[in-house]
């Protein structure tokens, strides 16, 4: 039974993630529609429920075009390199006290390390297309993802210091009384901003700024290769929202001792809140300029994250605060 679950589990997770992506796209369009006073997709199926299915079907039966001057092998490799890490990071995610695939000691660092591989896929995709807009989009994306990865990693150091472990299970277990969103509020704010940027979403969607770069690094891609880039983006939303829940919102722990709901339900509720927040931000904020983007990462977020580390180490020694740090 256990061996069967070991092999079938990832397949089931893949289907759950694909289902999530299908309806996350629809929910995003609906939510943004409502915020902007529109109805959103409502023609395909009841309440537009089959809209994304139709979109994906259209992408899959499209002609697979590769530009004449493109580097063919790298052009084909790039979507795979972008997608595989996005699914691989889910291996260490503890969805509840029992549902987890790999309980490794350095789970948090594993997430950060594997997710950086996606940048290579985006860069190659931009370069191999042999198109100046794709190249510019790829360059912007790499610069942005490298810059924001540093505050992202540093913002969670406070949690690592508090728990004394990089294991995601131990981080969740340490939040049984207080969620880290309260003592680590600076780290939380930095983490949320940096994660929105890592996800390449508005207000940080410069790599694919459609009004200035056509579509950024995937301008030459069509059909299922384009779908793979989009899939990677939405699987990262899944992964990043799970990580936010695990690190700052207490994972599967129930708030106020409301344990009549099982842990996985609490996880899903918190996870859905984080995903909704991402849609909300996208519908509200305008895109920031490329020079502001870099300045913001290096001159605002990085010092804040460093200050958070210093404050955490100091408060760890103060008598009253040792309860929380």
């Amino acid at each position, binding site marked *: 039974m256990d061996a069967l679950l070991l092999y079938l589990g990832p397949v089931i997770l893949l289907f759950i993630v694909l289902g999530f992506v299908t309806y996350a796209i629809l929910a995003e369009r609906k939510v943004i529609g409502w915020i902007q006073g529109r109805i959103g997709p409502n023609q395909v199926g009841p309440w537009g429920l089959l809209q994304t299915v139709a979109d994906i079907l259209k992408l899959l039966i499209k002609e697979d075009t590769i530009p004449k001057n493109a*580097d063919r*092998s*790298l052009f084909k*490799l790039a979507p795979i390199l972008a997608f595989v890490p996005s699914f691989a990071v889910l291996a260490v995610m503890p969805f509840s006290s029992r549902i987890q695939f790999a309980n*490794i*000691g*350095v789970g948090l*660092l*594993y997430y*950060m*390390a*594997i997710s*950086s*591989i996606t*940048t*290579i896929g985006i*860069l*190659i995709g*931009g*370069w*191999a297309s*042999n198109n100046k807009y794709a*190249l510019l989009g*790829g*360059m912007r994306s*790499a*610069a942005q993802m*490298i810059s924001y990865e540093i505050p992202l990693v540093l913002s969670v150091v406070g949690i690592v210091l508090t728990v*004394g*472990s*990089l294991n995601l299970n131990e981080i969740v277990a340490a939040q049984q009384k207080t969620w880290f969103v309260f003592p680590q509020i600076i780290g939380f704010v930095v983490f949320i901003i940096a994660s929105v940027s890592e996800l390449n979403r508005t207000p940080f969607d410069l790599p694919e700024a459609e009004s200035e770069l056509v579509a950024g690094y995937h301008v030459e891609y069509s059909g299922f290769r384009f779908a793979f880039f989009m899939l990677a983006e939405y699987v990262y939303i899944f992964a990043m929202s799970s990580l936010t829940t695990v690190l700052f919102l207490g994972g599967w722990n129930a708030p106020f001792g409301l344990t009549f709901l099982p842990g996985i339900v609490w996880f899903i509720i918190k996870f859905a809140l984080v995903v909704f927040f991402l849609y909300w931000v996208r519908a509200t904020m305008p895109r920031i300029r490329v020079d502001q983007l870099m300045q913001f990462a290096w001159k605002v977020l990085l010092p804040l994250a460093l200050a958070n580390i210093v404050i955490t180490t100091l408060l760890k020694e103060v008598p009253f605060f040792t309860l929380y740090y």
Partner: protein
Amino acid sequence: MNAEFFAFSILSVFAIGGAVFFLNSVRVMHMAISLAFTFFSLAGIYFLLQAEFLAVVQVLIYAGGISILMIFGIMLTKPEEGSPGRSFQYHQWISLATIISFFVIIMVIIYQSPIFTPAEKVSSPSVQQIGSILFKQYAIPFELASILLLVALIGAIVLARKEQK
């Protein structure tokens, strides 16, 4: 043949294959990708040796950071640029001599180290253990390495400044 041996064979073939592709590629971009592939396979071998922290850091710094930096630099060059001209004959002989001496040194070190004695049960070191050894026992070399990196960083800034003028 157990699973560990199987995984090791695949990973080592990947690592060596990446290195061979690196040497045989014509385009610089392909070289960078194959190098990243080799780095990633090495991380897999570290995982097999139960050095989780080392494996993850290998992915984070080599497969992630350094590869992206190289690709980023290469992207700014023209993609049409073909292979550089063949190097001189004596140059190749020097390379061969260096490689052979390097191989001999590595082999001597391997045979002198107690790898071939039956190993006792090794537990994988935790991050705490690595950290405390690094910051207590090897604090001075660690700080010296960070000063070296800082000097390199300042050097890069100075070079970039000079080019601007």
